[in-house]
């Protein structure tokens, strides 16, 4: 009797699992948009448990890996926080004013050129993927299919590097916080959608903390004496995990807005 009940239970469980797989997999065309990813803690109903503890790597560090998006657009237009005025060098203030007055008409992305850091992470709905490995953390930004490599093998930032759009990054753990130092930027990107400029003297410090399985926070310190008389800090940016999905290719192949950007 007991064995019959056991078999029935097993059958029931396997049917439930099959049903869950079917529901989660969806139609064939949506298999990468919604699929159950391994390593995801789950609630009894099969949904991801976003408040489960942050995962750890085998060596005991928090693991930031996952697909993330900004939790709201509160800091998109002003990285420092709504209404906060960041003191700027006169030339930078003039550039910023023009960018504000022309409603972002000339931002690099319009010409399919890269967004800045952290601008690339500030728009809800535009995810980025973190892949944490023992010697580097890879950032894949969905928009424009661009990436960053944050080396954690102990190397120092290069001296006099060839300037690049995303600069050179090294990272290390301070307790549960992943601290990323980046320098060697080419000038030209905007730090946020509002248009904070920077020069090749920019040195960024990003501090990432994964609060639990489903949430992560970032604070950014901006040091660029050619553009800003004093280093300044971003507001704390919140990210939420996009579970059970994948990034989608995003190449800027059909830009048609440029001729129509009035800007006022």
């Amino acid at each position, binding site marked *: 009797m007991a064995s019959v009940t056991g078999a029935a239970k097993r059958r029931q469980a396997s049917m439930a699992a099959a049903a869950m797989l079917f529901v989660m997999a969806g139609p064939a065309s949506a298999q990468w948009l919604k699929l159950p990813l391994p390593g995801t803690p789950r609630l009894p109903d099969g949904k991801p448990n976003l408040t489960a503890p942050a995962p750890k790597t085998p060596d005991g560090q928090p693991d930031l890996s996952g697909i993330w998006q900004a939790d709201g657009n509160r800091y998109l*237009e002003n990285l420092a926080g709504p209404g906060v005025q960041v003191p700027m060098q006169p030339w930078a203030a003039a550039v910023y004013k023009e960018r504000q007055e022309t409603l972002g008409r000339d931002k690099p992305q319009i010409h399919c050129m890269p*967004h800045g850091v952290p601008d690339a992470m500030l728009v*809800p709905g535009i995810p980025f993927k973190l892949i944490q490995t023992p010697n580097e953390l890879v950032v894949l930004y969905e*928009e424009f299919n661009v990436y960053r490599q944050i080396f954690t093998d102990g190397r120092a930032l290069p001296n006099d590097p060839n300037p690049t759009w995303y600069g050179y990054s090294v990272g290390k753990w301070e307790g549960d916080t992943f601290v990323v130092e980046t320098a060697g930027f080419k000038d030209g990107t905007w730090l946020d959608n509002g248009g904070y400029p920077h020069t090749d003297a920019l040195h960024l410090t990003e501090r990432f903390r994964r609060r639990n399985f489903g949430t992560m926070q970032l604070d950014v310190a901006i040091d660029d004496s050619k553009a800003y008389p004093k280093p300044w800090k971003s507001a704390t940016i919140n990210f939420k995990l996009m579970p059970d999905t994948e990034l989608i*290719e995003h190449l*800027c192949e059909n830009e*048609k*807005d440029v001729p129509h*950007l*009035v800007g006022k």
Partner: protein
Amino acid sequence: MKMKLAVSVAGLGILLGAGPALAHHAFAAEYDANKPIKLTGTVTKVEWTNPHTWFYLDVKDSSGKVTNWGFEMGSPNGLMRQGWTRNSMKPGDEVTVEGSSSKDGSNNVNVKAATLASTGQRLFGASSQPGETPVR
């Protein structure tokens, strides 16, 4: 003092009304949220491409003249995450669009929602209409 308050409240209204900007391009640099437009027509072409999806409708005016209009939405990536597929809309479909007019007077519209006549399905534009979550 009272006047100052009225001015600053009006200023706030404009600020809120302007809504979030797209990150690929600023919504307000190209479209006017205060000029809503609603058009019905027949799909002539769909460009399921990044950074923005575009589709085109032949729209007949009251005099019977047909004009081809362009409609901009968010990225296909954003649209797929909101339930669109590349086959949601096909040439020949009749579609009603609610959106915002262009600022330069061109026959382009930023899509807030598109309703398919055949199914009545109302799909959102996944762009950056004021009050919506921007999806670039």
